[in-house]
């Protein structure tokens, strides 16, 4: 196998492995957040979780695929390692950005669903309530 071909193959293998690892981490740990956001509706949480991971895969594999082209000829193993480090570094940065964006979306959804449970204003006073059932019994 020539050096350029093996460089591409190593790049693809590493990128795909990293993307799958990050996506699985998100899928596993994001579920708790989503169940909380949807007030214990696990079916809806699982569905949204799955859709988020699909989007994550699409964007990352899209980037990996677009960034495959090197643009110059590599002849030595040294050049191959340098090219790989640049490419993998970019993939890692994109994955990190996507990961933090996902966390941001999760925490925003959670904050939104929590704050809106509370009334907009504080009460003026409290009064005891005579229960209707107790009165009629």
């Amino acid at each position, binding site marked *: 196998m020539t050096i350029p071909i093996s460089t591409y193959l190593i790049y693809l293998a590493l990128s795909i492995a990293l993307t799958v690892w990050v996506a699985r981490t998100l899928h596993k740990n994001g579920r708790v957040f989503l169940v909380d956001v949807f007030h214990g509706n696990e079916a809806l949480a699982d569905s949204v979780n799955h859709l988020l991971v699909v989007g994550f895969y699409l964007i990352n594999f899209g980037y990996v695929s677009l960034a495959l082209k090197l643009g110059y000829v590599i002849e030595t193993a040294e050049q191959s390692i340098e090219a790989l480090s640049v490419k993998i570094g970019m993939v890692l940065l994109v994955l990190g950005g996507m990961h933090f964006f996902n966390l941001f979306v999760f925490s925003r959804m959670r904050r939104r669903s929590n704050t809106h449970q509370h009334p*907009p*204003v504080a*009460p003026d006073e409290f009064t*005891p*309530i005579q229960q209707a059932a107790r009165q009629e019994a």
Partner: protein
Amino acid sequence: MLCITVLYDPDCGLCRRAHEWLAEQAKLIEFNFVPCASEEARRRYPQLNHDLTKQDLTVIGDNGAVYFGPKAWLMVLWALARYRDWSYRLAAPEMLPTTRRVVSLISQNRYQISRATGLSR
């Protein structure tokens, strides 16, 4: 909070119209409508100042929390699916004084408004 009780003025045409409008809205929590200072209201809330409830709309939560006037209107908005976001907007510190002024103005002149718009009996 799962349910709110609205103490409204049964003699005011505007309030009856508001009541009809509320009946058509999608609600996030349950509504009870009780005429203010009525026997039913006194039985339910024996320690409440019922003269105060005649002056302005009053909302009481199922936890006994009492909201008078503008706060009561904000609670009504909060209980409606379409207007919950608006209740937070109108209750924000920069909007609350304006909300209070407008709601008080309408509330204090409700009989005149009802007459002028032909909503009174």
